[in-house]
């Protein structure tokens, strides 16, 4: 299994509060991703990073920001949590090879409930 941890694993918060989720990897992979999983939507990309301090938006980035100051850590911040951000959040990593596309490996997930 790829060395990916996410913290916290579970969180309950109130609407309007800021929340930060952490993804930590020990694989030294260059690419990191944040997804959310919701019923009827599958996995949707929020933000991704292709290197330290290099990030870009995904499909559902509104209301989220990210930071990557070290190769091993990728932080996802909900600036002001809303009930629509109640979801399960997954971090993933990949290492580009000869081709651009390489398999992504996922962390265990963080279950977030916004009341």
């Amino acid at each position, binding site marked *: 299994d790829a060395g*990916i941890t996410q913290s916290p694993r579970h969180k309950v918060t109130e609407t309007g509060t800021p929340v930060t989720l952490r993804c930590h990897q020990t694989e030294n992979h260059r*690419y990191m991703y944040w*997804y959310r999983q919701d019923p*009827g*939507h*599958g*996995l*949707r*990309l929020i933000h*991704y990073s*292709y290197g330290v301090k290099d990030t870009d938006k*995904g499909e559902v980035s509104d209301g989220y920001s990210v930071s990557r100051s070290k190769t091993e850590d990728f932080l996802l911040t909900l600036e002001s949590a809303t009930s629509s951000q109640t979801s399960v959040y*997954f971090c*993933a990593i*990949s290492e*580009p090879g000869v081709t*651009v*596309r*390489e*398999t*992504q*490996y*996922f*962390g*265990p*997930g963080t279950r977030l409930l916004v009341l």
Partner: protein
Amino acid sequence: DQQVKQNSPSLSVQEGRISILNCDYTNSMFDYFLWYKKYPAEGPTFLISISSIKDKNEDGRFTVFLNKSAKHLSLHIVPSQPGDSAVYFCAASGRDTDKLIFGTGTRLQVFP
């Protein structure tokens, strides 16, 4: 606009039989396809992939078939086992991108 579609939300198969999970895509630029398996309270795990230069890829009990003209791929599991009970996600990516587009998933239940 759902570019990757898994039209069957669930599938129930008897142990020992074949499980066939289907996935359709709309973007003709997709040329790399993956299947992930997800157990409850865990992250998705990579199962098998296929490049558009192939029409079949096999790994043990798992085989993925790609029909480019129909923009359709399928995952065959033979024989199905109770431990295969999980949600299966199909994913696709296009040329010159490192992003994956996921389907909505199919829940497979294998019963004795």
